[in-house]
């Protein structure tokens, strides 16, 4: 009797210990890359990291060997804003449409299309963007290598991400809330706006965040649509309309045969991480706020 109880508890403790260490191990494997990036970037880049680095434009020869990365910071922000202003409204709208229509053939087609778009390699987007937005021999818009061409190309990459996550977040809102609104005589649109969307806001925020983070890390779609600028342009369109971009800047810097540029690339990576952190917190705050507002005005 005593013996069996003791062995049972031994088994249980053994199992708990195994599960506990596995959890710890997997957690470690999951966060190790981030720690590694931060460690390497900090170790290599900290020597140039100061206020000047983030508040001045690159100078010297090659350009960037002196000065900072303000062009990249500003440019990435501009691209994110442009990409989001296209993809957030379109993606949320498409997600709401898919949620409403559910299984009808048109909705199925949109869903399939959106999933296919998710799988399109970003360099292909770059080429399409080039033909549609940038080149003067292509399909028409003649915007040159510009922030608008690059930002909209990135926006197209973001749309299917926001669409997918919006639809799923709406589906995760419990049916009893939806029915509660319908039973009070709410129309489909009122139910969607007043009950389903606020309930899905956190999920949609996550979708937008995923889209933005994806866009922040892209270089391939920008090569043919915006490329890079060591300054800050006066216009977002036309042959003088290109912006800097942090990811592109890092890519260019590490290809320079210059020790100081490599150090600056690492420091720029740290800045990019910090921006990611700020955007993450910002979106959390926004979704929290918009949920508050939505729940107040119904």
């Amino acid at each position, binding site marked *: 009797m005593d013996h069996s109880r003791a062995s049972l508890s031994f088994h249980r403790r053994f199992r708990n210990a195994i599960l506990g260490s596995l959890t710890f191990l997997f957690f470690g494997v999951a966060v190790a890359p981030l720690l590694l990036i931060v460690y390497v970037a900090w170790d290599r880049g900290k020597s140039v990291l100061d206020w000047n680095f983030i508040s001045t434009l690159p100078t010297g020869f090659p350009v960037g060997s002196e000065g900072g990365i303000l062009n990249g910071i500003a440019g990435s922000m501009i691209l994110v804003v442009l990409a989001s202003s296209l993809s957030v409204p379109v993606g949320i709208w498409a997600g709401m449409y898919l949620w409403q229509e559910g*299984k009808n053939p048109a909705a199925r087609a949109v869903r399939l299309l959106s999933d296919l778009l998710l799988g399109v390699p970003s360099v292909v987007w770059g080429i399409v963007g080039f033909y549609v937005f940038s080149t003067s021999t292509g399909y028409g818009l003649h915007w040159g290598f510009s922030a608008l061409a690059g930002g909209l190309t990135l926006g197209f990459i973001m749309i299917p991400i926001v669409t997918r996550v919006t639809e799923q977040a709406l589906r995760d809102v*419990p049916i*009893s*809330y939806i*029915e*509660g*609104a*319908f*039973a*009070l*005589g*709410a*129309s489909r649109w*009122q139910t969607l706006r*007043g*009950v389903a969307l*606020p*309930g899905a806001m956190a999920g949609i925020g996550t979708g937008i965040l995923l889209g933005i983070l994806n866009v922040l890390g892209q270089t391939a779609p920008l090569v043919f649509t915006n490329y890079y600028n060591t300054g800050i342009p006066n216009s977002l369109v036309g042959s003088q309309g290109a912006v800097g971009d942090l990811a592109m800047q890092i890519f260019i810097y590490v290809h320079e045969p210059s020790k100081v540029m490599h150090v600056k690339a690492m420091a720029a990576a740290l800045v990019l991480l910090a921006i990611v952190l700020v955007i993450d917190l910002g979106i959390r705050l926004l979704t929290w706020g918009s*949920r508050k507002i939505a*729940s*107040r*005005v*119904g």
Partner: protein
Amino acid sequence: MARMSVASFYAYYGENAALRDISLEIPDRQVLALIGPSGCGKTTFLRSLNRMNDFVKEFSIEGQVTLDGVDIYSSEMHPVMLRRRVGMVFQKPNPFHKSIFENVAYGLRIQGIRSRSILSDMVEKSLRAAALWDEVKERLDSSAFSLSGGQQQRLCIARALAVEPEVILLDEPASALDPISTSRIEELIQDLKTQYAIVIVTHNMQQAARVSDQTAFFLSGELVEMGETSRIFTNPSDVRTEDYITGRFG
């Protein structure tokens, strides 16, 4: 006079008939209790009265349901307008993620009512009618989820009352409540029937006997009999009704 009337009504989930050949009248200013064993179609019937089954895939109907003589499944009655006139309280409390005030005000806001004073008056009136006012009047702005389950259900009743429906459908509204809240709800139903037609699903025979004027007994998707509650409980005409209410099955 009958407020709603149901004639030769069939309801199907796909191929399966959940209700067969139901005909009955829902009298105004009275309480109709629906009783019957689990799965006999009470909820299906109730949700057919305000077209909440429209959202169920593969659901279809035959026959007719009228509200004040108008076929509610015809193009003459928009489902949204129907649901404003035929309110519903669900078995499990389902308040919105909003404040107590906004939960009750929701049905009015979606009708476009913006005036703060009208909203406040209606919210207070509805919360009083649902016997919840004294418990929440100090904290109308706190979340509905800070309330107990029983309070949440009374909030849902208040929410339904706020839009001043003509018919109120209650699907086992007290099954999640403690005895004191339950008796409050029962008193409330007695008050409400002076103004509304009320249909209540209940598994509790005593409750049906206490609150209702008419009782309808459902069995396997069919209406076995309907009549004055006092007669159904003392002198049912069908032996199956007698077996059920005396607890011999179900």
